């Protein structure tokens, strides 16, 4: 990717971020429920109108929409994402608190997913339309069809409650608590990714250069490792980038099922509490993340595919 292109992309990102933040800000503003009431209700006492008005003024919620938005925006531009109402700490700190849980889970789920789907996808493609392929496709179809929260609950029930192999209660980041959510995510993602690996490998196996390699007398396993896989990687990297982006956003449902202290669970809680600044901060994180990963994927292509590097397109 050339420098000019990169600058162009970065400018696009800024515009997109602006749009995304404006959109979520308006949606939160329009959604029913009052953050001040939510906040004070927690205390479970009857509060006077004055207290409510006072808190509202304190939080700046009595101002019109555009004033609120610009206050938030100028804050963000100066590196201040505001205070979380519910957590009573800066939004950045709150995000930072939940990030490790999500990072660890995303990493372990991605690795597990790759360990399952890459070998299965390759086998499925190489043994196309033979029993092994049908078996793998059947399993992956099953995996795609099962909702992951349900898989999570079943795993909790069987491996946690009945067999007592893993703890049921979450709440903290540790290896044994991570196994079940990792497995749940990996099953769902691997089911999809196996099919994508299969398609990508099949696509490459149909190319003329495979015939070329066979004519040059290479055995199939060498063709597979040295030629098919590197070529099949190219389309798969995009899909992997999307998967990782999805994971790093925090997987709300899974984190709720396993009460895993990650960004997803935090976001759900923030929405429930109408914690505007925290939701805004979270959405901003997701947007930056997706765009960042997409940019990384595109940059990686120019290194992995010589046709892009030298072709100048």
């Amino acid at each position, binding site marked *: 990717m050339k420098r000019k292109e990169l600058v162009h992309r970065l400018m696009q990102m800024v515009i997109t971020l602006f749009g995304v933040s404006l959109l979520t800000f308006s949606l939160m503003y329009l959604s029913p429920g009052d953050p001040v009431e939510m906040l004070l209700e927690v205390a479970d006492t009857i509060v006077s109108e004055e207290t409510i008005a006072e808190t509202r003024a304190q939080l700046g919620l009595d101002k019109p929409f555009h004033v609120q938005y610009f206050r938030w925006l100028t804050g963000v531009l100066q590196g201040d994402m505001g205070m979380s109402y519910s957590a009573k700490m800066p939004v950045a700190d709150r995000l930072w608190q939940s990030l490790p849980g999500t990072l660890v889970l995303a990493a372990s789920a991605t690795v597990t997913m790759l360990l399952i789907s890459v070998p299965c996808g390759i086998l499925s493609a190489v043994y196309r339309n033979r029993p092994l392929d049908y078996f793998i496709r059947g399993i992956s179809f099953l995996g795609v069809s099962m909702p992951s929260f349900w898989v999570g609950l079943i795993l909790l029930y069987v491996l946690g409650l009945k067999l007592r192999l893993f703890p049921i209660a979450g709440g903290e980041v540790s290896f044994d608590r991570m196994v079940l959510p990792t497995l749940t995510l990996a099953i769902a993602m691997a089911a999809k990714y196996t099919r994508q690996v299969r398609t990508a490998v099949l696509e490459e196996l149909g190319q*003329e*250069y495979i*015939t070329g390699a066979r*004519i*040059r007398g290479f*055995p199939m396993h060498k063709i597979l490792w040295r030629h098919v896989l590197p070529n099949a990687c190219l389309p798969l990297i995009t899909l992997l980038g999307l998967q990782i982006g999805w994971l790093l956003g925090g997987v709300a449902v899974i984190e709720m099922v396993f009460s895993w202290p990650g960004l997803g669970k935090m976001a759900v809680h923030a929405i429930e509490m109408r914690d505007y600044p925290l939701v805004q901060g979270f959405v901003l994180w997701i947007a930056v993340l997706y765009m960042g990963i997409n940019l990384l994927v595109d940059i990686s292509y120019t290194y992995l595919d*010589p046709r892009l590097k030298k072709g100048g397109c």
Partner: protein
Amino acid sequence: MLLEVSELSVSYGEREIVRNVNLSLDEGEVLAIVGESGSGKTTVIRAILGCLPHEGRVSGGKILFEGRNLLENTTTEWCRLCGTKATMVFQDSGSILDPIRRIGSQFIEYIREHSPMTQKEAVKVAEDMLRKMHLPNTENIMKSYPFELSGGMRQRVGVAMAMVFKPRLLLADEPTSALDVTTQAQVVKEMMEICQQDKTAIIIVTHNIGVAAYMSDKLIVMQAGEIVEAGRTNDIIARPQSMYTKELLDAVPQVGGKSYVS
């Protein structure tokens, strides 16, 4: 007899594409198969080296190479035969190379797959071979990706790779059809030179009867999956027997009343 194909039939699914093809080839001989597209000429040579696409399979006949029936080959035997004793040049040698790896790395990988050479020795052999095909700047070519070379250069690289182990048999599938006329003549000439030095037998598939006449000792004319005429090239060009061959010959452009064929 180096190669003897008898009663060869090839089917794609249920459809028989090639029927009862017989041909034979001695060491160093050049055989041309001509015919319009879809006549099954490419299928014949692909069947010989066991690289029919997807659904294709040999449904009958024998292919004897140095006295052995290739149809009984195991996978390991194919790997030992292909690329050393028998090789192939395609219409676009660029597309039969891995698009994301440099030509040099693929050439060297190929040489070392079939010989105990070191990296350094293989580089030297590869560059010598490219020079033999009159390619300038061999170092640059080794560092290039297939898509960076022109059509003529790609074909020369293809021939250089195919001839590096001095094969007994070279199958050439429309090796010059994608090139302009001037380059065509050069590549054909260079290919012939190398093959004559190494006494390599060639089967060339082409729709260009001019190229066929220039190169070959023997000629086979195919139409709709069957041989319509076969024999010494000079005899066929001088006295074509079948209507189809006559039509093919008549289709050759004439300049100043003189046919390019003879």
